[in-house]
């Protein structure tokens, strides 16, 4: 099948509502959204604590977090695989090759992005914001909430960046998900599999969806970054 034919077939798959294709899209978005729901509060809270507190080891934590930004997702997958496999310390939980394992993997990949970007956003906030909240009688929780609201666009950019990183990652999803059709097969792993099988139409169709998702996320990222600088 040529590229043109394959693309035509891919578009047909998309508009015909192909169950397998849209099922794969559903798995992808469901896993990524669940991972983001877990990672967002953890990552932003950790970024806030690092930005506003001084404690022994803080500098080391920041360096490690920034170093983990570039960690290969396949290595995260490998470590998680070893922990979740039958011989691993969490083997009894029988999580390997489940969506839960994929969610855990994506949380681990998203966290450094969220922590590092939140840290940077909160450190970049006008110091008068905190001082004004303090002078108006706010307690620590209200000051934290106020600061996060003041840098909300930069935080949204952090969320978009983390979402973009995990929705398209393949290494960890393949290792701990196992690419099981209808269960753990997501867009990136399905594209790799279908292409290796020579089913370009399915791969191209999923590629188009993934591209649109990534484009949407990156547009949102650019918008929020622009808003945060206003």
């Amino acid at each position, binding site marked *: 099948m040529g590229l043109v034919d394959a693309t035509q077939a891919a578009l047909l798959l998309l508009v015909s509502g192909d169950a397998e294709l849209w099922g794969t899209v559903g798995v992808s978005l469901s896993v990524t959204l669940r991972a983001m729901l877990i990672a967002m509060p953890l990552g932003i809270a950790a970024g806030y604590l690092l930005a506003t507190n001084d404690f022994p080891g803080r500098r080391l934590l920041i360096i490690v977090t920034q170093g983990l930004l570039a960690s290969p997702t396949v290595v995260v997958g490998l470590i998680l695989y070893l922990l979740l496999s039958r011989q691993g310390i969490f083997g009894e939980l029988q999580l390997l090759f489940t969506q839960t394992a994929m969610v855990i993997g994506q949380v681990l990949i998203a966290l450094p992005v969220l922590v590092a970007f939140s840290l940077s956003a909160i450190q970049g906030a*006008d110091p*008068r*914001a905190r*001082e*004004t*909240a*303090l*002078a*108006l*009688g*706010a*307690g620590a929780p*209200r000051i934290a909430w*106020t600061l996060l*609201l*003041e840098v*909300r666009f930069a935080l949204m950019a952090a969320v978009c960046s983390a979402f973009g990183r995990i929705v398209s990652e393949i290494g960890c999803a393949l290792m701990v998900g196992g690419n099981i059709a209808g269960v753990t097969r997501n867009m990136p792993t399905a594209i790799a599999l279908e292409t290796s099988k020579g089913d370009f139409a399915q791969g191209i169709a999923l590629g188009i969806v993934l591209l649109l998702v990534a484009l949407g996320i990156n547009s949102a990222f650019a918008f929020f970054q622009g808003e945060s600088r*206003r």
Partner: protein
Amino acid sequence: MSLLVVRSLAKSLARRVLLAIDDLNLSAGKSYVLTGENGSGKSTLLRLLAGIEAPDGGSGCFEGRPFGWKPYPDWLRRQLTYVHQQPYLFHSSIADNIAYGLRARGVARGERERLVDDALSWARLRHLLDTPPARLSGGEKQRLALARAWVLRPKLLLLDEPTANLDADSRQQTIELLRTFGSSGTTAVIACHDRDVIELPDMQRLDLVGGRIVQ
């Protein structure tokens, strides 16, 4: 009657003395203007009194109740407020900015709305209600910051150069608000170089030189 008494208040930075005040006694309902050269410690004193910075040492007594700075007590924070030279306005609405301190004090919604309404009238900001705070002029921002402080009815108001960088009209409007603020029974300490503020009626002058009060 004493509102605030501070003793042996000291602050240094890299061996440079920023502030060294042996004794400061502020009477209830009076207004004070802090004068002095740049770097004489005016802003530092205000920030220490507001609990935004901690001193190296010192003790205080507010309405007869002793307090220290580490940690700065919440009950005292609710009795006073501080306004920056260039006030910071939250990225929300004008009404939300005014309501901020009321929310922090747990004032019920109905009462909060009534107080915000009063403050809008007091600072003549009602016509700007739908304007984002970031689009306000310098004078309007200063009036909003004063309204945000006034609505709390603080016993002690700490203002850092409230008329600096304002045009003539805005300056006059701000001075007028300061006059009415002072007449409401609030004790005010205003760091200022502006002669019109220094010469406001019943304004007592505190001159700072090298971090010490000399007058």
